[in-house]
């Protein structure tokens, strides 16, 4: 009898054949980064240039796209992947660079070194970091290479890079040395020294180790270098930026849908739930409820109909993890949901996604269609007798719909208002039927847990927070981007090692996690490990993964006000503490930043905040005061300065600023012309003067002055 696993392997081989057929005439594949952010940076134009060159016959290369690799600050990016050779990634590619890549690299085989991010050094070490290879031995190997290469002063000649899954999981850990194209398999950390000394320095491959030479040349996709990825572990983002998200074949080639086939062949629903429970996976939407228990509760209910929902209503300002995951690897979420459906006994899945993410929606639609065509969705999946289908529902811009009961109301076609729990959706959810709601990142973890096992998964992370967490690192940090770190990584490691420190080497002030529901942590919290409990005890929350770095130029009171404006506006209005409370808090904050703060305002904010947290109906209200309370806790002196001294140390709150013209003034009259209230007087070529009574502190003069003659204090 053919089992689902047999069916899958056949499909996988066909998929790999199709990939190789496409590249039959070429030994290279060009991958152009095509996530929303890359497109915004101009990658569509770059794509056209490459496609055009192929069409005109200038180059014979297969051109395709991939999702986000998390290098937001250097986009657009282009990878040239070549059979049997080290991949080359180009960064900051504009039209001119693209043409240069075509002329020099693709036609003549010469790398355009000044734009290469990796692949241009004498030798490259590529270590497989496919999600299935991530284990402690792999980590030791990385460290051994790092140490030996540094000790032998090889840093300028040799680079350490990481690749996605090579599809040789039984041979892992695997390390490939380029340009020699020699792979060491089943490698041990203690043998690394030998490889460095003999192979890298003397140029002689270490024959006595397990070594693969002259194998069939393959396309090896590299995602990054050690400097940015040393502290990262990519489980959720395992395929992001490595595969073409609009081509199911590429997903199948990297063990896609294997978990589903495994579950349908060998596991009962109960066993699946046990596995998820044992893994220790907790909800990645922010609250951190144990996923396995949620599944178990939903499975326990008997009903003629059950639903599985993927919450992709990523509404936090400053968060783009879920968007990037969907845009880069939509099938991983679909696969997770089908497994979830099998485990709880549901045949119907719904993905609730923001309408503001058109590309993610489009890629999901393509992925769903392909999955249906290949028989992973629909009736009798892979001949197992189990049926499951997924439908997309669009959100319409309401932050509160991230809350599961509000989300359910929205899918039902109502205003997205929450209701008291219990009953929880696991008992009474969509259309009053038992419903399992998990967030995008949670779903994307499921296939890996099933293939690699709960034991493997639970080794990563801390005692109570297992696995990894994806963060959207943004704000005043050098390397903004999408990152994934094991739970327990400290904020300092994220901001300084992965993020590369503060932009323009300014002073660090705070890091904000959890968006409008989270808090701001100060310098003394930088060594806090990222896990659910530690972040809460420091005064913030894990949240869904927005992480904004704030430097000395931002005013913490204004930041708190910004978040409160957001929640106040997004409050659905159903319960009084949230509706009225946030409004009153905002009024107080507004008067503080306007320089009209009164003695006792801080205490009022604390009291109100505490009440809103205790008395609100849903998560939105219960967490709305967090940004204010955490900034009061960690930056109380800034509040006091605003209220007592009417001063804003960040020079951010305009009402607390004074603009004055200094002796640098040349009398060019630029400021006088631009002042909207005619507060500036003075004749041409003479020093001007600002009338402080009239000045509205808009800063227009300060911005327009070319002689640095206006002081702002």
């Amino acid at each position: 009898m053919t089992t689902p696993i047999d069916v899958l392997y056949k499909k996988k081989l066909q998929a790999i054949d199709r990939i190789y057929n496409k590249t039959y005439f070429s030994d290279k594949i060009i991958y152009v980064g095509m996530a929303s952010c890359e497109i915004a940076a101009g990658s569509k134009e770059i794509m056209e240039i490459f496609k055009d060159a192929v069409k005109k016959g200038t180059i014979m290369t297969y051109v395709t796209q991939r999702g986000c690799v998390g290098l937001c600050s250097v986009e657009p990016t282009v990878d040239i992947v070549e059979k049997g050779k080290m991949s080359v990634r180009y960064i900051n590619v504009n039209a001119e660079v693209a043409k240069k890549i075509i002329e020099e690299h693709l036609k003549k085989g010469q790398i355009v070194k000044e734009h290469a991010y990796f692949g241009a050094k004498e030798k490259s070490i590529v270590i497989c970091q496919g999600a299935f290879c991530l284990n402690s031995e792999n980590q030791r190997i990385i460290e051994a290479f790092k140490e030996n290469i540094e000790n032998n002063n090889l840093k300028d000649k040799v680079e350490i890079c990481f690749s996605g899954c090579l599809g040789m999981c039984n041979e892992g850990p695997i390390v490939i040395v380029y340009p020699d194209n020699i792979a060491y398999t089943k490698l041990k950390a203690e043998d690394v020294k030998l490889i460095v000394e003999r192979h890298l320095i003397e140029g002689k491959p270490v024959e006595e180790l397990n070594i693969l030479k002259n194998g069939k040349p393959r396309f090896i996709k590299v995602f990054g270098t050690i400097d940015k990825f040393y502290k990262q572990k990519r489980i959720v983002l395992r395929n992001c930026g490595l595969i073409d998200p609009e081509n199911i074949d590429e997903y199948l080639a990297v063990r896609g849908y294997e978990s589903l086939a495994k579950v349908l062949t060998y596991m009962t629903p109960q066993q699946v739930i046990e596995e998820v429970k044992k893994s220790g996976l907790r909800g990645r939407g922010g609250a951190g409820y144990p996923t396995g228990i949620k599944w178990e509760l939903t499975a326990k209910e008997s009903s003629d109909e059950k639903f599985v929902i993927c919450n992709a209503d990523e509404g936090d300002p400053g968060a783009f993890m879920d968007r990037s995951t969907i845009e880069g690897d939509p099938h991983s979420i679909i696969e997770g949901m089908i497994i979830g459906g099998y485990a709880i006994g549901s045949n119907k899945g719904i993905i609730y996604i923001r309408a503001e993410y058109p590309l993610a929606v489009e890629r999901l639609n393509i992925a769903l269609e392909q999955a249906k065509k290949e028989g992973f969705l629909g009736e009798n999946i892979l001949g197992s007798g189990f049926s499951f289908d997924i439908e997309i529902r669009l959100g319409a811009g309401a932050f509160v719909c991230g809350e599961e009961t509000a989300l359910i109301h929205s899918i039902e076609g109502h205003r997205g208002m929450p209701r008291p729990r219990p009953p929880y959706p696991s008992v009474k959810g969509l259309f009053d039927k038992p419903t399992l709601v998990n967030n995008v990142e949670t779903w994307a973890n499921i296939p890996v847990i099933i293939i690699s096992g709960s034991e493997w998964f639970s080794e990563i992370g801390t005692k109570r927070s297992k696995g990894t967490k994806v963060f959207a690192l943004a704000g005043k940090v050098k390397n903004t981007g999408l990152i994934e770190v094991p739970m327990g990584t400290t904020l300092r490691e994220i901001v300084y090692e992965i993020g590369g420190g503060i932009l323009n080497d300014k002073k660090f002030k705070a890091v904000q996690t959890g968006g409008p529901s989270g808090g701001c942590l100060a310098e003394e919290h930088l060594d806090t490990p990222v896990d659910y409990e530690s972040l809460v005890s420091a005064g913030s929350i894990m949240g869904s993964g927005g992480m904004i770095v704030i430097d000395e130029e931002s005013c913490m009171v204004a930041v708190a006000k910004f978040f409160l404006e957001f929640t106040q506006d997004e409050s659905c209005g159903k319960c009084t503490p949230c509706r009225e409370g946030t409004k009153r808090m905002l009024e107080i904050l507004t008067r503080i930043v306007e320089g009209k703060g009164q003695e006792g305002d801080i205490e009022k904010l604390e009291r109100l905040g505490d009440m809103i947290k205790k008395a609100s109906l849903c998560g939105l209200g219960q967490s709305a005061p967090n940004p204010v309370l955490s900034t009061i806790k960690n930056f109380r002196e800034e509040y006091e300065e605003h209220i007592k001294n009417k001063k804003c140390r960040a020079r951010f709150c305009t009402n607390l600023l004074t603009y004055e013209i200094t002796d640098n003034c040349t009398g060019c009259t630029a400021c006088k012309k631009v002042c909207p209230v005619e507060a500036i007087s003075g004749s041409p070529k003479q020093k001007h003067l600002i009338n402080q009574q009239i000045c509205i502190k808009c800063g227009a003069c300060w911005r327009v002055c070319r002689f640095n003659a206006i002081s702002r204090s």
Partner: protein
Amino acid sequence: MENLDSVDLEKMKILKDYLKNFKDKPRVESNLITILHKVQDIFGYLDRSALEEVAETIQVPTSHIWGVATFYHYFKLKKPGKHIISVCLGTACYIKGADEIIAKLKEELKTDVGGVSPDGLFSLEEARCLGACSLAPVVMIDGKVYGNLTPQSVTQIIKEYKSKHK
């Protein structure tokens, strides 16, 4: 309906065809938000007579539809300008000076947030977060994202759009 011009009649026909998909569908009212998205796709905003048509088809009171439509930010109740400008006010953009960008746009377009410029060319809107945080501050015009903006570059971009209509 008597006030509709020929363009609107054409749009209404498209809507009616679309709504046929929902006749006799189980739990049809749960598709309301999906349908509202389609209305906005077709008309550019939630046209009142279109909503009446929707109410008729899926047998839901118009008052309920208005309740839903006004709850969600994404739905527009007024006819927008030819170009839709959304200024991202997400955290990263805020930290990097989105307020200056919005002030400049208000000045250039002579309208407030949520309004349409007097020449009918531009709608000015706020967006929560466009998810392009690394390019902050960003503005989206008709789906195209412009990043790393300054008040000066915004002026330049608006100028380019205006020149297309001269």
